[in-house]
């Protein structure tokens, strides 16, 4: 039971009771009686022509209901951004793991057996396996329409970078390489599709963070109207950005159509690695010029990012890496050139941090190097360059609130930064890194950014919330319920948040860009305020008092002449409106812009910040890195639920340390060889820092609901550099490539001693 005001209170996470008892049905738990199981046949070659596919034997297997190959697909290639998804391979394959054929059958075993009987004749082609070389002469051109394998490029220039560099006291340049990462959500991608033969309509129960975007794209890909595609998004076991529009869903849909039955797609873990999307690896050539005080005078970037074999979100991620960090610090002279390139590898897509995490590693490492050379405290160089509330940054980003300085100060105090830095014990070190991020990002959808919500007061005074942005475990449903409970001053227990369903809930852009609280939260707040106003009007009439005499309290309208609970008001409205419940719609438009042709313009309503400090111990004999303490201070504007914010921070830090120290995708001639949890090591209990302290900084915000900004992605952005900067402090070794390789670190330490 929550005492006091709702906002800022720790409340039980929505559906927690169902989760802890195993009663919550995730998408892979849904029992679709009669749903067939499917198996995809995947290419063993990273790049090859397909000379022949013979599925004859597969069709003979008893229990097989349909077999599908690319030859049967009429349409040209499709795609959510670039039309490079064949759905099933046509005359060639572009990565080892690409979908070549698919079978659905009465059970998984039968489908897998049949898939193995499909014969494919390949003629291997030279493959582009190293994205860093993809644009070089002599590399195969993978697609006719993409010379030098370039998917897209990005340039932004401000001021005069050469002048800035010339005026610099110190210029430092480094090339950083960030690794690809597998999201490793615990529930692999899953989707059930049922095709209605009579109406030509598809119903999906799909794990997707972007149900409406998927609805539009799948409709286009399947050649039907979006009104003929219904997407229901059941609870899912994690997303982290890697469950957007998904090719496997389309294959399941086509199989369902062919078989005349519902089909379930649910990957085995090994297959989920191959199905895409992995984090974009990047090569970041970064140059910074600073004056004697450490003030940034120039920033130059040449960046190459790996798209993989087909396009997911790369065209938005690569530019994000190029220029989001420019609004963390004040700078005027910038020259940035970024390239997104094809390679014959697993498709790369969104993952927590979205390019900003990659660039933050580079930026925070190089600033650290500069601080060391200037004999400056790494903290001071951040403080001297940090953006402030009220700034309009070099790209026109409007910083409406910033708790960055406070984050640095609190983290430093909690970490005992000054004393720890002075301590200088061998192989023990401390490092700092900061970050910025967005709370929603306008360029994601042309038409607008924002969100809509409907709230409905039903029998018993219960409230239904309908919103199109997605719960992936981060607690969005709880946040929305809490906001509504606060506005309406009603018990949280009486609020229900519907699952996203494209035929029920209002259109939503989805869960990405750390936008949930800002966008959906504001939409629900606005809708709830409208509902409150209507409740007051009716209550005033029934209680014979003035509207301004009424107070909402404990799920009731109260005034001096009496009170009416929401159940009574709901019943009253049903009568007045002849069966129509009291509901209100609200939408939130953050007034952001898609940056103009010069990349100028404010794309997010407000920006969260963070400062992390890691204290590490390095074993010189093994190169193993242990994180002793970790402090993560986050400017979240206002924490709607502090416990939930802490959970996001803790989860982000551990994911980040996995990326830095443990997780490495290993390829052999273009084939992923460690696609399992034994050989791809994600953090376990044993890998957690000895002490992890999340700190919440609340400067408020003029735009966020009750002043709240986001935290999901900022939670991971600074982690890598915090750790690698600490490794430098401990050993004198600078890490520029991820993950940290113990063997290499050990040798480099040996080289220094």
């Amino acid at each position, binding site marked *: 039971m929550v005492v006091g005001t709702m906002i800022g209170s720790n409340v039980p996470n929505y559906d*927690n009771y169902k989760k802890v008892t195993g009663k919550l049905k995730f998408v*892979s738990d849904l029992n679709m009686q009669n749903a067939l199981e499917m198996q995809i046949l995947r290419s063993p070659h990273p790049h090859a022509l397909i000379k022949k596919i013979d599925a004859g034997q597969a069709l003979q297997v008893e229990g097989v209901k349909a077999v599908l190959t690319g030859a049967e697909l009429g349409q040209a290639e499709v795609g959510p951004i670039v039309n490079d998804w064949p759905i099933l391979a046509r005359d060639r394959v572009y990565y080892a793991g690409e979908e070549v054929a698919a079978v659905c059958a009465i059970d998984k075993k039968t489908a897998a057996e049949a898939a193995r009987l499909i014969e494919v004749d390949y003629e291997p082609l030279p493959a582009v396996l190293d994205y860093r070389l993809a644009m070089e002469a002599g590399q195969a051109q993978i697609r006719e329409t993409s010379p030098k394998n370039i998917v897209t490029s990005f340039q932004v220039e401000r001021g005069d970078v050469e002048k800035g560099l010339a005026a610099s006291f110190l210029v430092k340049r480094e090339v950083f390489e960030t690794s690809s990462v597998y999201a490793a959500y615990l529930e692999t991608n899953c989707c059930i599709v049922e095709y209605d033969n009579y109406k030509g309509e598809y119903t999906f129960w799909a794990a997707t963070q972007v149900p409406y975007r998927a609805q539009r794209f799948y409709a286009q890909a399947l050649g039907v109207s979006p009104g003929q595609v219904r997407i229901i998004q059941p*609870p899912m076991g994690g997303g982290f950005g890697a469950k957007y529009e998904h090719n496997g869903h389309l294959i399941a849909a086509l199989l369902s159509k062919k078989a005349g039955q519902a089909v379930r797609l649910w990957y085995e873990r090994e297959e989920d690695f191959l199905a895409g999307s992995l984090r974009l690896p990047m090569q970041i050539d970064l140059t910074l010029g600073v004056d004697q005080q450490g003030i940034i005078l120039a920033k130059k970037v040449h960046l190459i990012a790996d798209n993989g074999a087909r396009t997911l979100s790369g065209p938005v991620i690569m530019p994000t890496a190029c220029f989001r960090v420019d609004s963390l610090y004040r700078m005027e002279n910038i020259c940035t050139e970024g390239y997104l390139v094809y390679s014959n590898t697993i498709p790369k897509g969104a993952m927590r941090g979205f390019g900003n995490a990659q660039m933050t590693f580079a930026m925070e490492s190089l600033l650290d190097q500069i601080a060391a050379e200037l004999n400056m405290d790494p903290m001071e160089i951040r403080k001297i360059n940090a953006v402030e509330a009220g700034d309009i940054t070099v790209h026109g980003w409007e910083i409406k609130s910033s708790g960055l300085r406070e984050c640095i100060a609190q983290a430093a105090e909690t970490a005992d930064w000054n004393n720890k830095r002075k301590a200088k014990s061998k192989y023990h070190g401390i490092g700092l890194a900061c970050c910025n991020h967005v709370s929603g990002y306008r360029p994601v959808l042309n038409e607008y950014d924002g969100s809509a919500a409907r709230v409905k007061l039903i029998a018993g005074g219960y409230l239904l919330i309908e919103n199109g942005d997605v719960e992936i*475990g981060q607690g969005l449903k709880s946040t929305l319920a809490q906001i509504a409970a606060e506005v309406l001053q009603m018990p949280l227990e009486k609020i229900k948040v519907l699952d996203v369903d494209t035929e029920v809930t209002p259109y939503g852009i989805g869960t990405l860009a750390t936008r949930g609280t800002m966008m959906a939260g504001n939409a629900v707040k606005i809708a709830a305020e409208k509902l409150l106003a209507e409740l007051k009007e009716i209550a005033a009439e029934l209680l014979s008092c003035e509207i301004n005499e009424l107070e909402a309290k404990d799920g009731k309208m109260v005034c001096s002449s009496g009170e009416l609970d929401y159940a009574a008001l709901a019943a009253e409205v049903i009568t007045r409106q002849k069966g129509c419940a009291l509901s209100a719609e609200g939408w939130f438009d953050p007034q952001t812009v898609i940056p103009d042709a010069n990349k100028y313009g404010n794309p997010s309503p407000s920006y969260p910040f963070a400062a992390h400090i890691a204290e590490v111990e390095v074993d010189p004999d093994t190169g193993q890195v242990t994180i002793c303490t970790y402090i993560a201070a986050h400017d979240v504007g206002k924490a709607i639920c502090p416990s939930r914010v*802490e*959970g996001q921070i*803790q989860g982000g830090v551990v*994911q980040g340390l996995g990326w830095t120290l443990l997780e490495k995708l290993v390829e052999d001639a273009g084939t992923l060889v460690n696609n399992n949890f034994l050989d791809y090591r994600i953090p376990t209990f044993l890998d957690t820092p000895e002490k992890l302290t999340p700190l919440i900084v609340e400067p408020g915000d003029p735009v966020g609901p009750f002043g709240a900004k986001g935290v999901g992605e900022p939670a991971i952005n600074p982690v890598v550099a915090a750790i690698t900067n600490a490794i430098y402090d401990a050993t004198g070794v600078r890490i520029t490539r991820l993950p940290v390789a113990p063997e290499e670190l050990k040798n480099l330490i040996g080289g220094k001693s």
Partner: protein
Amino acid sequence: MRILTLKVNGATHRVASEDSELLVDVLRERLGLTGTKKGCGAGECGACTVLLDGKLVNSCLLLAVQAQGKEITTIEGLSRQGKLHPVQEAFLATDAIQCGYCTPGMVLAAKTFLEEHGDFTESDLKREMAGNICRCTGYAKIIQAVKLAARGRGGGEWW
């Protein structure tokens, strides 16, 4: 196909199953007990954790036929007449759940750990529960939950 007799959460079930079917699949698909999850199919993640005669096992590494004659406890069998087990209460109290997919396995692992250990260090806890993976929480609040549940031990109907 054969008819297996499986004792799950105190109830006896007769279920048709192939010899090659895994316990996790029989529980989920044939008995409809979807509280037990499937995260990797290779005994690496712990999402499929159940108790077999009170001992923790990965149900994705057992054939259903191997579980005959034993007492199987899944997450659905933990609460009694709607009353949550103290470990479940602790997970709720400490907000140790995000997406919830690891939670059933995690709860069973925590319960077993607390039954088998009197005093323990955080190190003991981390080592013993390392077989259950979580990608969302960073484990911090789960550790708090186990410690909270530990404090509540001392007789009563659950311990």
